């Protein structure tokens, strides 16, 4: 039977606040175990949480970024369960009244189209610590550095049908939160962790099947793979007349399979109730408005503006705005050379290829926006052919100076010396009498076409350095003589 996959995503996003959500400890990644945990983080007797207002501001920024309802009053709750890396025996979260309500997020798909995803809610909570299973023989260590790191849990409606959509959503989410400056969105360091709720139903049906939840899938690629194998697993079960068990599963990247977590680890009654140590978070219009005013231009509107202002394709615009640094780079280069299409092509072409090759981000590339603009200026004014431009780019990447410096130093300047060019043209004319005869017999329109042959020959003879414009000028003259 043909099955339709239905998915909803839950993303746990670590917020990039300087300190933890309920204590003054720093929340950096990668410190020595337990050096970033104070008495509050350890759940010591008598210690009380104090809300980091920056985390609230970041949550509101996210809410505004997806056009969601912002809870004028949100309430923290305790989620109760025992685990050694959960110091208090409860996690402070928001269950009944989250800070961010329903929103809509338009996700750019690889083909340039937009795919709308409904955000159900987003709420603030504290992260747990980590159990360290490999540091001590027969014992488990506890590292509480991460305990109390602010998280925003972003929950979507079951709007996804393909792995491609899920990955596109995660990429767009990554882009959004880095624009908003609320998270580094780094999946490999756990700043963005994804749970996938997935179920199958017969194509055409509109009731949901039994779902499983795949926990903590920590890269775009693994999300895609996990969805593929889980879809296959559920389809096999259903095709064989078996049923899917509602459960939590883990994706094992090494074996490329999902497997059930022991029920003991998940069969919890969390006994949510309002956290009595914290007051409700009350936000007034003025606060929300001032946060709204402070938002940067977000990927969606920026994409639309790029298409409009620079007459870029949907595809190019979507790629350029996917990172704020890249969009800024683009605009900065365009400001210097006023050649948006060329700048877009170079960023998405040679520059991206070089960055991928050396695994660099755009803010780490050795070629500055103004250096690239310098190169493009020389392409636009015909100093450089596209072939020469690639060599100049190589020089820029290697730090050989500006485009003009490299043109000079590498001797890549086009040959514009009339005498030199005329000699080359004469040679070509002499060596191709048939083509000359053909040319001279043709009408004006045909002549234009045929002139390409001669230009090509001359460029070849000059090893690409002949100024094509000057060549065709001189060629016309010679041929019509």
């Amino acid at each position, binding site marked *: 039977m043909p099955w339709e996959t239905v998915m909803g995503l839950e993303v746990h996003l670590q917020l990039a606040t300087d300190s933890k959500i309920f204590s003054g400890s720093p929340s950096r990644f990668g410190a020595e175990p337990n050096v970033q945990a104070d*008495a509050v983080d*350890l*759940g*010591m*007797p*008598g*210690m*009380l*949480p*104090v*809300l980091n207002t920056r985390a609230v501001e970041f949550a509101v920024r996210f809410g505004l970024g997806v056009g969601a309802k912002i809870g004028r009053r949100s309430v923290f709750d*305790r989620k*109760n369960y*025992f685990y*050694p890396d959960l*110091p*208090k*025996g*409860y996690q402070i979260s928001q269950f009944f009244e989250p800070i961010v309500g329903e929103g809509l997020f338009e996700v750019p798909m690889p083909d340039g189209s937009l795919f709308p995803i409904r955000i159900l809610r987003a709420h603030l909570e504290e992260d747990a610590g980590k159990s360290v299973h490999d540091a001590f023989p027969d014992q*488990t260590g*506890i590292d509480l550095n991460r305990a109390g790191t602010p998280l925003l849990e972003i929950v979507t409606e079951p709007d996804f049908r393909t792995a491609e959509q899920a990955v596109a959503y995660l990429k767009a989410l990554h882009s959004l939160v880095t624009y908003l400056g609320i998270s580094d969105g780094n999946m490999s360091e756990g700043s963005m962790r994804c749970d996938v709720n997935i179920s199958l139903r017969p194509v055409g049906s509109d009731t949901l099947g039994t779902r499983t939840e795949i926990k903590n899938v920590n890269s775009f690629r693994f999300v895609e793979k996990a969805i593929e194998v889980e879809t296959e697993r559920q389809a096999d079960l259903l095709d064989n007349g078996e049923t899917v068990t509602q459960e939590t599963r883990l994706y094992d990247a090494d074996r490329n399979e999902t497997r059930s977590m022991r029920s003991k680890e998940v069969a919890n*009654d969390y*006994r*949510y*109730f309002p956290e*009595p*140590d*914290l*007051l409700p978070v009350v936000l007034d219009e003025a606060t929300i408005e001032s946060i709204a005013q402070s938002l940067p231009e977000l990927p969606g509107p920026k994409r639309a503006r790029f298409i409009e202002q620079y007459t870029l394709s949907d595809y190019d615009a979507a790629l350029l705005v996917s990172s704020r640094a890249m969009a800024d780079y683009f605009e900065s280069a365009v400001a210097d050379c006023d050649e948006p299409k060329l700048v877009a092509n170079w960023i998405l072409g040679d520059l991206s290829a070089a960055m991928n090759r050396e695994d660099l981000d755009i803010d780490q590339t050795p070629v500055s926006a103004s250096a690239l603009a310098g190169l493009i200026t020389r392409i636009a004014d015909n100093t450089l052919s596209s072939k020469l431009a690639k060599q100049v780019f190589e020089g820029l990447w290697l730090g050989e100076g500006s485009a003009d410096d490299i043109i000079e130093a590498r001797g890549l300047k086009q040959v514009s010396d009339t005498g030199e060019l005329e000699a080359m043209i004469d040679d070509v004319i002499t060596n191709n009498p048939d083509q000359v005869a053909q040319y001279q017999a043709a009408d004006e329109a045909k002549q234009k076409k045929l002139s390409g042959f001669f230009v090509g020959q001359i460029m070849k003879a000059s090893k690409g350095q002949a100024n094509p414009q000057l060549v065709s000028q001189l060629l016309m003259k010679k041929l019509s003589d």
Partner: protein
Amino acid sequence: MSPTDPTKASATELSTALANGDVSSLELTEHFLERIKRLNPTINAVITVTEDAARQDAIEADQRIAAGDQGPLTGIPLLHKDIFCTNGVLTTCASRMLDNFVPPYDATVVARLRDAGTVMLGKTNMDEFAMGSSNETSFYGPTVNPWDVSRVPGGSSGGSAAAVAAGFAPLSTGTDTGGSIRQPAALCGITGLKPTYGRVSRLGIIAFASSLDQAGPMTRTVEDAALMLSAIAGMDSGDSTSADRPVPDFRADLGGNIEGLRIGIPREYFSDDLDTAIAAQVKTALSELESEGAKLIDIDLPHTRDAIATYYVIAPAEASTNLSRYDGVRFGHRCAQPKDLEDLYFRSRTEGFGDEVKRRILVGTYVLSSGFYDAYFKRAQQVRRIISEDFSRAFEQVDVIAGPATPGTAFPLGSKNNDPVSMYMEDIYTLAVNLAGLPGLSLPAGAVNGLPVGLQLIGRAFDESTLLKAGHRLQQRTDWHRRAPDVEVSR
């Protein structure tokens, strides 16, 4: 030594003696340390004595006094309930679970009293995790009532109440979640104030029920309570529920008369639950206030009895999760040789907690569990609001509400241990005050068969001043607060 006997003197009187140079803080400290050493084996009011640190604090206080740099509490010895975290000093909450727990920080209340120059003599006994009304749930054995050592001192701040009554210190700190300051104060014949919720920081106080817990003074006189409240009250950025409100000079507010003060007498507080002899004593005390110009007005608090059920849903619910952190992983009791994680949890908690604590964790877990939340916890929150509205309505007609602090006098040790509900009834007049977050003052108002009787005054939120003023007027007219048990004899 001064002409006043420090054992019976108020902190205010001792402060004057210190300022006049009649006595030094070190002399006072030695006096009380000696008394604790001699009599505590009988009373068992103190778990830890901090002898050396006390002497050191006293010497520093004497230097401040000599330099004329003292406040009204500088050099006054006191005891802290063992629920307050004290930097570098064992803090047990009277539980085996914390028998080895030495916090690296002071509770805000402790820090503020230290800054005021008080001298900490030690930590007082209490019901385990403040769960109890008789001090019998302590891991360190029950405290007994200095008025009759075969009887309980009340709880959970029973050690603090008995210590002041027995003359171990003029002041002690307590906490009150459902009556834990006021009930033992009443049974031991001392003065105890539960401030408005949010008036005093909870930071560093080992949590029982977070939305109800409040720290307050336990003293000989209302004047001392006013003094102490001024020292500990006020906003604390470390406790989000502490109130950002100006703190009056409560002692200065004691002056003036109570002419025209409207005192509400709830009919429900004088029902069949109340011992008739106590009712008579309380009425006598009220007539004293009437003589001072107060008007007594009958009122209704129709949901008085509902407070018990409501409290015994909300408090255990909060407690069940507050006590989840005691898991044997980071601090506190850990069982020997755990086999695996579940064994570690199971045995550490089984061994570390006493019966009453376990009972409340079970009840609390039950009322929060899925399927029962609406029927219990949510409903209790609704009733809590209704109880609060009872008080709001009453305070439209009156300025203060008055009644007995407890339904009976101190009861014999062991007499209610097998009957939790009868034990819970002990707090029938005090629980509602916590549910509504209001201030309540318990003060001595006579005796029945040689055992103290307590009067409770309840005020509007953040209006401790009116309570204290009325209580102070009563203590100006009467000497019940001046009576002390002869502990040497009752031994």
